[in-house]
């Protein structure tokens, strides 16, 4: 029961420390909005995909990309049809005319969308959530805050399971929970009461359990896992920053 996208592996990206991967993600995100035109964003996306490919997580990347394909298509359709700067007809499908300017804007927005996703996936797909949070706690993130982040990932599937149990119990007492959209919506309302109540009770019990395991201790925490920073982490960080500076400088010069 794990509600994370993390793909276990031992690639050089997996072994990279979380802070370096956060830097890669931030650089990717900033460049997404800094790089002009279409060629440079395309190159950025290609570079990100190469990184993700060397991490061996491309299959999961394609799944995520496919999941947002509808949004990308919407960019092309909406901008191609109604973008204010549309002037040059490019394609006519029946009564609909798509314009070159709008389609190019749609392409730019699509690159942004996929570059944002690719940058984020480098971190998410190759880093265990607990390692990420632990790394941040080592650098000063309050451990209570770190706990909340990580616990949410675990609690969501638990709540989904609890909702399933309650629905089963209600169904066994003759309540309709399947059928048309209206029937499902009606079944949702009586589910919320017991789900929220049981979650609140469970939260209090978990708070008690945490309390007696020293959660509120004032001692300086130690960590089960040693933080290992590979020898290539600094070269990767420096290269990422160099690419970022290059991108920003290029943008400034072009403008």
């Amino acid at each position, binding site marked *: 029961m*794990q509600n994370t996208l993390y793909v276990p592996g031992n690639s050089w990206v997996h072994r990279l420390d979380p802070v370096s991967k956060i830097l890669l993600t931030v650089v990717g995100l900033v460049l997404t909005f800094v790089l002009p035109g279409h060629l440079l964003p395309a190159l950025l996306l290609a570079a990100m995909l190469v990184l993700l490919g060397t991490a061996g997580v491309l299959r999961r990347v394609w799944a995520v990309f496919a999941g947002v394909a509808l949004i990308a298509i919407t960019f092309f359709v909406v901008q191609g049809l109604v973008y204010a700067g549309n002037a040059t007809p490019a394609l006519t499908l029946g009564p609909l005319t798509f314009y070159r300017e709008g389609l190019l804007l749609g392409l730019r927005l699509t690159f942004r969308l996929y570059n944002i996703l690719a940058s984020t996936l480098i971190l998410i797909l190759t880093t265990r959530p607990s390692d990420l949070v632990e790394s941040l706690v080592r650098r000063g993130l309050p451990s209570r805050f770190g*706990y909340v982040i990580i616990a949410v990932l675990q609690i969501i599937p638990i709540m989904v399971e609890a909702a399933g149990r309650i629905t089963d119990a209600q169904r066994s007492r003759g309540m309709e929970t399947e059928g048309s959209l209206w029937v499902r919506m009606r079944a949702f309302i009586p589910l919320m009461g017991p789900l929220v109540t049981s979650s609140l009770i469970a939260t209090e*019990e*978990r708070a008690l359990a945490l309390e007696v*395991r*020293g959660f509120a201790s*004032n001692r300086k*925490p130690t960590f089960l896992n040693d933080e290992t920073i590979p020898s290539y982490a600094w070269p990767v960080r420096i290269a990422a920053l160099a690419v970022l500076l290059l991108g920003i400088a290029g943008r400034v010069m072009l403008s």
Partner: protein
Amino acid sequence: MSVIKVENLRYRYPRQTELALDGISFTVEPGEFVGIVGPNKAGKSTLCQALVGLVPHFYKGAIGGRVEVAGLDVHATPVAEVSRKAGIVFQSPFTQMSGAKFSVYEEVAFGLERAGIPREEMLRRIEWALRLLGLWELRDRNPFALSGGQMQRLAIASVLVMQPEVLILDEPTSQLDPAGTSEVFAAVTDLCRQGMTVVMAEHKVDRIAARADKVLVLDRGQVLAWGPPGVVFSREGLEGRGVAVPPVTVAARELGWQEPGGTYPVTVEAAVRIGGAALGRDQG
């Protein structure tokens, strides 16, 4: 020297008028296994929580008397500090998982990390606790993928790694099936053999009677009986107050099978021994 001293403990929950605990006094010696029994709302869970300071530190309310555990005045010591001397395991194994760890091994480390235990010591303790509770082979599993009995044993292991002097269990088998219940009782019995002081609130009186050195019977927040299981469960009138008595003791009382000291047997083995002797006498 007693490891637990409770003197005239009185406690009332916030916004309540009745006392949840009313004049409780008892002592527990190191290495003893004490069972707490009684009907629902007798105060069993409240007493367990008072032994680790959750009452009154977590629940607030009005408290009087004194609770001393492993030399700590529980009312004057933060729960995080008391938890290093006295660990508690609750009813629901599910809600005792931290929710922040993705393997059994890491789950056991949670409290140690918070307590600032050095890593080398942490590794040693985790292996010790997981092997003791029979969880070593499951160390890479997600805690939420375990069965109820395994999860409850993990909860016990997570408490034991803190190396408390006292282990308190608040109805740890109430949500478990018979197999899970047996797993937990076997683990606790092993711990007792190794000298751990155990206090366990439990409804399954036959199992408590068979293992406990002493039994504390509570009713409406007051001590109804306190002493060795044979003495306690031989008292008249317990069932009338809603206190469960081991079926074997009830049967022995009906048959008049008494121990030499005048008490009734609390285990099947003892009943068979005494009954056998009685039948032998009758036939002779």
